[in-house]
């Protein structure tokens, strides 16, 4: 993967932050990996969104529209690779907080598919079944990612 990305910061290699830069200014983004209880092999949830400007807590209800979607997504992909470097090539589960947010994630993955698919296996959840991710096909309900 040779995509433009933001520099990103971490303390424990499970929580990452970076700054989206665009017409809306500088927006602090967070990516948090958390082990999902009762999963074997271990599966980690990826939570992604903006840091609340006052509380600093993660929230993905905001659509920031900072005209840098591809750079943001490439940065998130980088955090997955870095997480895997430190904790192993585990399955990573991701789902938007709403169907439209999940659809946004799917559009982002599809836009960068040629690059993403060289480094990651991606599955989409449809009707309670995981399928190999196909860009611009079904509307998936969640995603599962594993580094190759």
């Amino acid at each position, binding site marked *: 993967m040779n995509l433009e990305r933001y520099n990103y910061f971490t303390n424990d290699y499970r929580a990452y932050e970076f700054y989206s830069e665009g017409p809306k200014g500088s927006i602090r983004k967070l990516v948090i990996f958390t082990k999902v209880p009762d999963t074997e092999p271990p599966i980690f949830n990826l939570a992604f969104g903006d840091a609340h400007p006052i509380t600093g807590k993660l929230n993905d209800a905001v659509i920031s529209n900072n005209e840098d979607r591809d750079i943001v997504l490439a940065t998130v992909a980088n955090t997955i690779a870095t997480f895997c470097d430190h904790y192993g090539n585990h399955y990573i*589960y991701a789902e938007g907080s709403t169907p439209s947010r999940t659809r946004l994630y799917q559009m982002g993955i599809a836009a960068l598919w040629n690059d993403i698919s060289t480094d990651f296996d991606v599955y989409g959840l449809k009707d309670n079944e995981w399928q190999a991710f196909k860009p611009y096909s079904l509307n998936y309900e969640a995603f599962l990612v594993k580094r190759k």
Partner: protein
Amino acid sequence: MPATVKHTEKGFGPAIESSQVKSHANDPFVIKKVEKARETLKKVGLPDLTKK
């Protein structure tokens, strides 16, 4: 901490260590997402790789 100027690079690269990055593991939103993931994964499991 990160500056507000646009700093990008290309390709995979290491994270920059910063003690100012907090865990966020206990943020209510994160807890809710993990619980939702647990429920879904309990129901659907992992992909059947033989179908790939």
